[in-house]
């Protein structure tokens, strides 16, 4: 008993912090329809403000008030005002993309506002490490008691506000339909703002409470906290606060206990134990009855809105457009030829890296662009491809080509598994499942030496060409990359134009209609995920080969976030978009070691991508397609194209 308690009791306070985050997550989802990943970032910011202020000599109370009661709600309200209130009619996917962009940005901000040194854990807000009381030989500090009390009191306040207050009722009504709410005489804006302020405050509170228990205040620690919160939210089916609270505490304690009991230094302790939470999360998402229906709440008045026509207007290709597309590609090829001949090796290398990334991003084109499904695990699939290629070469000397092929096959197999696990699910739930898989790779599979090679990483087989001696920055490698990209792009285009594309469009536009003619969403999902997995794996192997050595850090979820943000910004629906995005990422991810400065143009590129990605909510087709749309408007003026007829009918409708 004593041993058990010594493992279990320390889990309770952190479980409480996780619970606060989870409640904030559920509250935001319930009241605004946004599955807000950026809470991870907001909690981090709050923890950081608190830690830095205390470090710089302010009192803990002042710092806490600043971080929790002032900064956090302000961030929430600003986010609502500047972003989320403007995209209430966007799809659930688009809203999550925006939230991911916010997460991405929020995690970058501190590096230029405060200096980039490590921020160590601050002293606790309440209590200290002094012992409050002892249970069966396990000392419980006053700090732990304080955390638990704060968390429970906040949870009760939330429950009371949501259940019994007028504001709670209005918040719940707002998520059903802001317009119905307004029709009943309540102004909806202040209500959603209040919901944002309130849930952001909870995120801030969680961030501050958990900060003292960390080693350093850094985004990754908060990601882990957030994942706990996400799991708890799933346990409660994104609805029941009691379950969320109990789930958060129970889960954290269970993990702490498991961690304590597993034999030290064994495979169980290093791989199986850490994997439990993610497998649990995946299983919960797959089998929890509440998750099947986790879709953005639909407005009963949505029927009166005109349908979103942008997709129609930009995705149809007439002969003229094909001509323009051809000319565009010719320009791209000529441009690359120019690069190959004239540009210095370092830039050639970056571009080749970009082309490799573009191959990975083609998998996003397939999954997100064509089937409208957000996936955060494409980066992990690329990693699986790369590690498989490297390990196979290390063990069996298969070389690059065979290794990349097998890497693609392995990544495809894992992607199929994910899709099979997601069979019953749609939309956001599938995305959550991809998050669970990405984290499983991130935290467990890749750190496992058998896969990720441990500290030294995995050295990748170099690209070889018969009869020519090449290095990673050779022009020939770039040409090879382009050939690979063209092949993979061809696959995507053929699927897009063939029956798979037809099925995907049908499913995206009316799942009920598609099912009525016999299109099974689950089967199509498996086919697209598997194909995308192969593309990601092959692309990842090529990318890895260019890097020379790959480590788990090359393919973590934060990197995946940058990739996703870039491709959503530039164009997730076309092969050209993937190419431009891949090259942009290669330049944006130039090493920024040694402190970020404002003159660092890679940083500006990242900021630009993030800003452009926010437009995803209004223009899911991305910048590249928008540019194409502009060229077709010009040609439409020359000859009457169908596009113009469309426009006029739209105006009449």
């Amino acid at each position: 008993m004593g041993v058990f308690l010594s493992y279990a009791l320390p889990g309770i306070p952190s479980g409480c912090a996780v619970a606060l985050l989870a409640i904030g997550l559920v509250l935001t989802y319930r009241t605004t329809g946004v599955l807000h990943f950026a809470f991870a970032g907001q909690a981090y910011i709050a923890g950081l403000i608190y830690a830095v202020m205390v470090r710089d000599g302010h009192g803990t109370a002042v710092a806490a008030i600043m971080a929790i009661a002032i900064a956090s709600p302000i961030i929430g309200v600003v986010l609502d005002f500047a972003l989320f209130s403007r995209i209430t009619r966007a799809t659930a996917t688009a809203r999550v993309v925006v939230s991911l962009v916010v997460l991405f940005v929020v995690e970058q901000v501190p590096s230029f506002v405060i200096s980039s040194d490590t921020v160590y854990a601050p002293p606790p807000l309440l209590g200290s490490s002094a012992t409050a009381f002892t249970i069966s030989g396990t000392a419980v500090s006053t700090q732990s008691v304080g955390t638990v009390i704060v968390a429970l009191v906040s949870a009760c306040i939330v429950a009371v506000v949501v259940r019994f207050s007028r504001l709670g009722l209005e918040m719940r009504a707002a998520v059903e339909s802001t317009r119905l709410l307004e029709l009943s005489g309540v102004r909806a804006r202040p209500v959603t703002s209040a919901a944002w302020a309130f849930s952001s405050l909870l995120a801030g509170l969680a961030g501050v409470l958990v900060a003292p228990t960390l080693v350093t205040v850094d985004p990754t620690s908060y990601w882990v906290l957030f994942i706990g919160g996400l799991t708890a939210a799933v346990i409660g089916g994104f609805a029941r606060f009691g379950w969320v609270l109990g789930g958060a505490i129970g889960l954290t304690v269970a993990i702490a206990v498991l961690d304590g009991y597993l034999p030290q230094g064994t495979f169980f302790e290093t791989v199986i134990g850490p994997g439990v939470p993610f497998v649990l999360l995946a299983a919960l998402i797959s089998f929890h009855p509440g998750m099947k229906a986790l879709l953005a709440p639909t407005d009963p008045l949505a029927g009166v809105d005109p349908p979103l026509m942008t997709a129609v207007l930009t995705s149809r290709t007439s002969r003229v457009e094909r001509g323009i597309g051809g000319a565009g590609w010719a320009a791209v090829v000529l441009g690359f030829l120019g690069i190959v001949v004239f540009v210095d090796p370092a830039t050639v290398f970056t571009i080749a890296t970009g082309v490799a990334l573009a191959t990975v991003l083609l998998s996003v084109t397939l999954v997100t662009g064509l089937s409208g499904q957000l996936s955060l695990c494409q980066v992990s699939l690329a990693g699986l491809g790369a590690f498989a290629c490297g390990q196979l070469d290390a063990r069996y000397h298969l070389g690059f080509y065979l290794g990349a092929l097998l890497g693609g096959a392995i990544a495809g197999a894992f992607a199929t598994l994910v899709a099979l696990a997601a069979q019953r699910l749609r939309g956001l739930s599938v995305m959550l499942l991809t998050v669970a898989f990405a984290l499983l790779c991130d935290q467990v599979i890749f750190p496992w030496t058998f896969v990720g090679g441990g500290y030294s990483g995995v050295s990748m087989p170099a690209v070889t060409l018969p009869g020519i001696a090449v290095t990673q920055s050779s022009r020939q490698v770039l040409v090879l990359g382009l050939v690979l990209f063209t092949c993979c792009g061809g696959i995507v285009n053929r699927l897009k134009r063939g029956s798979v594309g037809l099925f995907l469009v049908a499913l995206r536009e009316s799942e009920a209609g598609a099912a009525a003619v016999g299109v099974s969403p689950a089967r199509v999902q498996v086919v697209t995920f598997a194909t995308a997995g192969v593309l990601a794996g092959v692309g990842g192997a090529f990318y890895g080969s260019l890097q020379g050595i790959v480590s788990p850090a090359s393919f973590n979820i934060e990197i995946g976030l940058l990739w996703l943000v870039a491709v959503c910004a530039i164009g997730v629906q076309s092969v050209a978009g993937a190419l431009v995005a891949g090259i942009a990422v290669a330049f944006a991810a130039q090493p920024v070691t040694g402190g970020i400065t404002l003159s660092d143009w890679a940083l500006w590129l990242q900021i630009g991508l993030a800003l452009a990605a926010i437009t995803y909510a209004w223009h899911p087709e991305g910048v590249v397609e928008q540019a194409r749309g502009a060229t077709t408007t010009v040609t439409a003026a020359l000859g009457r194209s169908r596009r113009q007829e469309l426009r006029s009918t739209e105006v009449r409708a």
Partner: protein
Amino acid sequence: MTARLEVRAVTTAFGGIRAVNDVSFTLDAGERLSIIGPNGAGKSTLLDGIAGKTPFTAGCVLLDGAVLPPNRPARHALAGIGRTFQRVEVFTSMTVAEHLLLTLRAAHGSPRLWRDLRRLTRQTKGEAEQINETLEALGLERDAATVVGTLGLGNCRRVEVARALIARPKVLLLDEVSSGLSTAESAALVATISALAMERQMSVIAIEHDLDVVRAIADRVLVMVQGSVIANGTYDAVMADPSVVEAYLGSNA
């Protein structure tokens, strides 16, 4: 002889509401049934259940004597149940012809990944013929290349019918197909459907509010009120039934 379609003691409850309450009936090959009833009677819910879109709380549906798996609309479609929707479910960015092509392709069950990669999925002559034939039957041939998002409601309904018909379903389910069409248009549509039902031995279940359409399309009429069937017989017999008259006057008054 087994019936083409048998609906056996079907109930659908949403929480406390029994939208469909213990409904049973059978339908022979080529038979045309119309379901009428006041708003909220559970007609659409029953149809969605037969099409596999909403799960039943109890009961089952048999097609040619075999039980259909509940809640698997795609399987139902492939088994031979075609349908239209009360709120149209079309693919706004596809052309009319693409809707039909999709149905033909979907008849194979899975996406044809390998054929796509070898570019073998371009429209074949056979497919084009089938598409043209169906479009002509429904008077949509001029709109073959029109994007459906730009069509009016009446045409969208016809697209839905065409999309269902091209798969040569054994049973066709129509949910208020005449709403949004002019009298002349709906008469033409009803004539087409009736003729095809004869020719292909296709059974039809049509939910209708327009009694003229009901009389024209149906061999038999089923009246639902508050989830239950209160009458089932020929048009004249049903209309003479006092409980039906009461239900209708009650709801219209």
